């Protein structure tokens, strides 16, 4: 039994960007942080604490999962855990995208009406 993705919406901006950052594949904490900054064009600058608070919540909600890098050496100074989107996380992200698209579409229509 999988929960309804819509019940997680709307996502906050940092949550949306964290999930979006993990959409292509697994990442370490710092890579997520940098990616979120890039994706949001510097608007969302997560500190370490804020990032891990959000990550903890997303893990609880089963939207992401924490993966052990196992025997692989992630590189000097890199943590041995990485994060990946779960199926539910991906569906929530898609649902949020649809929600945002709907909002933009409505706004465009309304603005066009006003302009006409």
């Amino acid at each position, binding site marked *: 039994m999988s929960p309804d993705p819509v019940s997680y919406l709307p996502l906050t901006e940092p949550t949306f960007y964290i999930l979006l950052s993990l959409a292509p594949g697994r990442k*370490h904490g710092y890579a997520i942080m940098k990616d979120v900054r890039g994706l949001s064009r510097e608007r969302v600058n997560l500190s*370490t604490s804020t*990032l891990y608070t959000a990550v*903890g919540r997303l893990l609880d909600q*089963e939207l992401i999962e924490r993966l052990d890098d196992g025997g692989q050496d992630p590189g000097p100074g890199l*943590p041995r855990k990485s994060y990946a989107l779960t199926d539910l996380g991906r569906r929530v992200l898609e649902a949020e995208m649809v929600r945002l698209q709907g909002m933009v579409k409505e706004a465009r229509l309304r603005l066009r009406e006003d302009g006409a």
Partner: protein
Amino acid sequence: MQFLRKIYYLLLNLYPRKYREEYGEELYTVFGQSLNDAFEIGGMEFAKTILDELFSMPKAIIHEYLRERRKSRMTGKFASRFDLTPGSSTEVFAALVPFLFGMVMILFAYIGKFVDFPLWIQIAFVLFFWSSVLGLFLLGSAKGLPRWFLPYLGLPLPIASLLIFNVLLDPKWPGFNVPWLVSVILMEGFLWGWMALIVVVLLLISAWMPKFRPFYRRLRDDWTLLSFLLYGAAPLTLFITFDEYKNVEPFFFASLLMLALGGWSYLRNSEPWKQFMSLYIGLALSMLTAAAGKAVLFEESWPQFVSLGWENEMIYTLVTWAWLAFIMFLPYMLNLLPRSKNQPSTAKSI
């Protein structure tokens, strides 16, 4: 920079211990990487990063304490005087109150046949009984549905099932053109099967609503918890089974005692199959005692129906038992459902 890292490392001690053990190393590494990158960009970025980290940390620490508290509460590990150690005598007592109090009530009613208790004693006794059960019910609800509380959730299920049957089916009950035993099996199934449906609905709600998902995860991790919840339905099922029978006290008392022993054995064991068998044997002995009781009491309770034979009444009770036993086994099916990848499978199969 090394100095700042050391300070950060010390500040990590302010996080809850479990969180620190789990994420401390990652936080420290990521903080170090942020500092390095900011330093390469320039002085302003470096200062901004340090300030961001320092200002966001207190909020994050408070948040983690609250999250840990909330999580523990939902997983039944909330540290309080009501956080009863699994298998401890206090947990056993709290869980078995519905059975034990039922026994005390029966004993009281039985003694009442020989001793004329003043009305105020009777009222006080009933008030004490219901306020204790209600108090423990509210306490268990508030404390995140711990294991000892699960039979309380199962307690009202037979009444709910009976009500649904009476409202939906009984007025239009068509009867079946089938052999008598088959019709009894179908009838009892329609009578008690609603309990399974109600539990499925509760399960779906707990899986659906993010707030209740920790409870759902607990049920997924240990399928016997749901069987234990359903075990709580047995006392009122017995009560309904004995309806309108005379002098049922010794048999009712013995039936509840069997249930209490089964519950005790469940709580004291830690292996799922042993726990489940404890409940199964407890239920079987209890219902067999009830069936034997009905056979013995049939003639004095229903003198006008003696020709129908006590065997039929026994069969009704045994069929009820079979249905309850079947419903109690259904939670095992939870193991067959797919499991999220990051959820460990702790439930062992029987």
